[in-house]
């Protein structure tokens, strides 16, 4: 099961139907199909991130996101563009199909990068309600799935699945419950659990078809322990744009 918060690709399920929604499927096939339909060579968008704390305090940041590759075999650079204090701060994520991603942060004011250790992936992504792990893109093979039933989410009929990380997989979550829309295989909601406590809920809204990929324009992550919420809006989203491979390296991150 993909952690799909920042990477819009994972929510972009193709409508080229290999299977019809009416066909009975098992849980793994559903996720495989979802992954297949969102396969793209690259992606670019500008994101706006709003963090709303329980106290009512709100902060906003903007970034530019670029990715090449897809689903567990990809590289992505996320670079903040506003506000001024964080402009230029970048995050390089290199996803691997068989293990956890490598992540580095670049801070221009200190003029150096730092590695985000695997142990730190459970921590919050720079004060948002996403964790670093939520930025990773994982392959379908890293999880076990189980179909729990059907349910309506935001007016759309969905399959309700449970995904559990395989033993070899390192994750802060013990399991997740995922709602996949039957009509376009787009993710509608993910609830993540630590032990038996639900800790995060991710809602996908304003799902549009962009270049044939169903894409949620707005994602809302709710941290249930902190009672805070982060909303990510995707703008100027493009798929399959020409992006050079060398733009996804530490050297390139330092250069910009």
């Amino acid at each position, binding site marked *: 099961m993909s952690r799909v918060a920042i990477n819009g690709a994972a929510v972009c399920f193709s409508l080229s139907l290999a299977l019809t929604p009416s066909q009975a499927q098992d849980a793994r096939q559903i996720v495989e199909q979802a992954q297949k339909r969102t396969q793209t060579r690259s992606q670019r968008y500008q994101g706006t991130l709003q963090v709303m704390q329980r106290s009512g305090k709100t902060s906003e940041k903007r970034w530019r996101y670029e990715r090449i590759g897809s689903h567990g075999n990809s590289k992505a650079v996320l670079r903040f563009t506003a*506000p001024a204090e964080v402009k230029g701060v970048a995050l390089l994520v290199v996803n691997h199909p068989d293990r956890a991603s490598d992540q580095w942060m670049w801070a221009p004011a200190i003029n150096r990068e730092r590695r985000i*250790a695997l142990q730190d992936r459970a921590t919050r992504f720079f004060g948002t309600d996403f964790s670093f792990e939520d930025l990773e893109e994982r392959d379908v093979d890293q999880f076990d799935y189980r179909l729990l039933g059907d349910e309506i989410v935001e007016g759309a009929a969905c399959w309700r699945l449970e995904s559990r990380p395989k033993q070899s997989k390192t994750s802060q979550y013990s399991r997740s419950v995922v709602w996949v829309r039957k009509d376009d295989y787009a993710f509608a909601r993910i609830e993540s659990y630590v032990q038996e406590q639900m800790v995060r809920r991710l809602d996908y809204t304003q799902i549009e078809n962009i270049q044939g990929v169903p894409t949620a324009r707005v994602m809302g992550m709710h941290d249930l322990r902190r009672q805070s919420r982060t909303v990510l809006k995707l703008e100027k989203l493009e798929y399959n744009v020409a992006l050079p491979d060398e733009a996804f390296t530490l050297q390139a991150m330092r250069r910009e």
Partner: protein
Amino acid sequence: MILLRLISWQYARRHVLRTALTVAGIALGVAVLVGMHTANQSVLHAFHQTVDRIAGRTQLQVWSGDSGFEEAVLERVQSLPEVRVAAPVIEAVLSTGRTGQGSLLILGVDMTGDQGLREYEFENGEQEVVDDPLVFLAQPDSLIVTREFAERNGLGIQSRLPLETAEGVKQFVVRGIMRSGGLTSAYGGNLAVMDVYAAQKVFGRGRHFDRIDVAVRDGVAIEQCQAALEKALGPGFQVKPPAGRAAQFDSVLRVYTMTLNLSSVFALFIGMFIIYNAFAIAVTERRTEIGILRALGATQGQVRALFVGESVAAGLAGAGLGLGFGILLARSAVGYMGSLLHGAYGVTQRAQEISADPALLLGAMGIGVATSVIAAWIPARNAARVDPVKALQKGKYQVLSAGENRARRRVAAALAAISIGCLLMGGDSSVALYTGYLLSVAAALLLTPTLAVWLARALRPALRWIRPVEGALAADSLLQSPRRTSATVAALMLSVAMVIGMGGVARTSYRPIVDWMDAALNPDLFITGTETLADRTFRFPSSMTRDLEQAPGIEMVQSVRTARVIFRQTPILVVAVEVARVARKVKARVIAGDRDRMYRLAAEGKAVIISENLAELQRLSLGDTLELATPGGVLRLPIEGITRDFSDQQGSVLMDKAVFERWWSDDTVNVFRVYLEPGADAQDAKRQILEKFGAERRLFVLSNQEVRGYILRVVDQWFGITYVQVAVAVLVAVLGIVNTLTVSITDRRREIGVLRAVGGLRRQIRYTVWIEAVSIGCIGVALGLALGAVNLYYTLEMTRRDFSGMRFDYEFPGAIALALGPVILAAALFSALWPAEAAVRGSLVEALEYE
């Protein structure tokens, strides 16, 4: 209990002053012990507490002396399956520059992972500890401060706080405020957190961390994780629970603590003689009372128990008072000790509160009571042996005394002979050294009564010459009652011997230290990142060496990197320099090895040169291979030279800087030694250096004189703590004189009454008492100087063998001895003022009542 209430209590009430003096003798000894140790413990406790509170959920800490290590080590630690969280840390202390706020402990951490180890957030989770975590990480001027510090300084979010950095004073922005709790109470609340990578820049640490804090994976034993880390990292790293790191600090202070212990024991020992004196006098005075008790059927055991009971009561009262005074003393001494530790070891601690260890207080109470009981034991035994019939027979007592004196002299002679034997045949054996020392002191103590009589006899003609009547009376008083004065003389002797021993070490160490400074610390200017040479908080980049050399008037710049590393479980100092350059300018005293060869091989990175004290303490010799565990593995180099070097009390190793850079992967610099061209003005050069570098870098340019002054100040501070104890010891001895004279006057009330009745003037009686006091002082000083000469020898030997390994030539401190004589005599005279007035103002009728 009945006897105590009916007899002892009544006696104490009749002799309030003497009882008070006895109690004061114990109180002072205990106060010194408790005060000095509590102050010491408070500083140590503050360090332990800081380590503990900062540690949070940290179970193990990885460090490599105080040298730090490369960032790559972090990934090696994080990759171990036994490790749940591993977070890098840089720790440093900065001056806040705010009046009354002292220093600020800066904790550089990686906030992305560190929250797995330390609790930074508000408990209710409503608010963020950091206003914006991304801004905090993105901006190197970000700081999180404690609520206490913020309130004390009127700081809020976005407030600016100027702090010294490696690049000069920079404005920092408060981007977070921590709620009060465990972590925030570390270092008295003067704690600030910054990003570890920003801290590297701020403190000029390059790409190094000071340590890594580790939390163990669930289900893995701490010992298992520790073993895995030690195996993965090699011997150059220490892997220990946080308490283990704090214990390292204790180890650094070993010499200091040992000195403190020695002085405290000495002070108590002196107090013991005051108590012995008081009880011996009491037994003499109460012989009739004891005789009556025995005649009424009291057993020997009951009489002994009565006096032992009195000593327990006096011990409890004295020790109780001593505890109170000790805590008061600790309060005033703790700041001094903190400053001393900072100067000598570069360790800054903020001991805000006195940490009185219950075990120490209980121990001191026990020692106070035990001292009292031990001191009173012989008088109590003598009291028990009093024959009820003979108790009233005048003259019998003196016969017994004479017999005791002969036996004492024989034992003293035997002990002195064994002591000399230990000295001559003991070699380097510590057992022989300490046995010889103890026996020499014991022999001196046993001989004190005899020597006191001899000296009093010798003094008699001189006293008669000064004042024919009063002098003769005073001398006779001393000669007739040697028991009354011998314990006081012994206490004085010990005090003087202690001053000579401690002061002598201080004096004899001065010249070698000055010689060493002349030979080794001969640059015109020193450039450091901190006010003290021992503090390694700020470092310079190595590139600055060449920049400095281009400054006008500079002939040569030597870059120095010092680091404390662990060698055989002991923290020693590595001094990394460009040996070839140093050899051209420094003419250190070579103890072993060929000067040219040792410098040549060390410059080529093929050998090391060690200090004389390291060789002494670790039993190292020329040609031995020194094995140092470094972050890069075990460094093995032969010892090609042993020189006199007082850089560190635990010893130092001089190696070429290239070797250090290779094995520690660290090319930073602590100190630049700058030699000026002939004729260049040091002040001009200093100004130019400050103008050129001062704006972009935090630096202190110290002249040669300033550095020498600083070192001598540290030496003075070091011995200052013992001087305090010496002063207290002298005070204890003065109390003894007052006690002795008070008894002397009571004893001679009738004699004084007769004198006055036959026309003796009050002035003459006053003079008699004064002369007696000064005579006791003279005898005490004379014996003390003699014992002090022996004590100094042993103190120097102990310093060399067990304390710091430093070898100082024996030199009797004549100046101290000369100064000490008048001080003790003046103190003796001062202590006689009140007893003399008491003698003069006593009722003539009462004095002659018996007649």
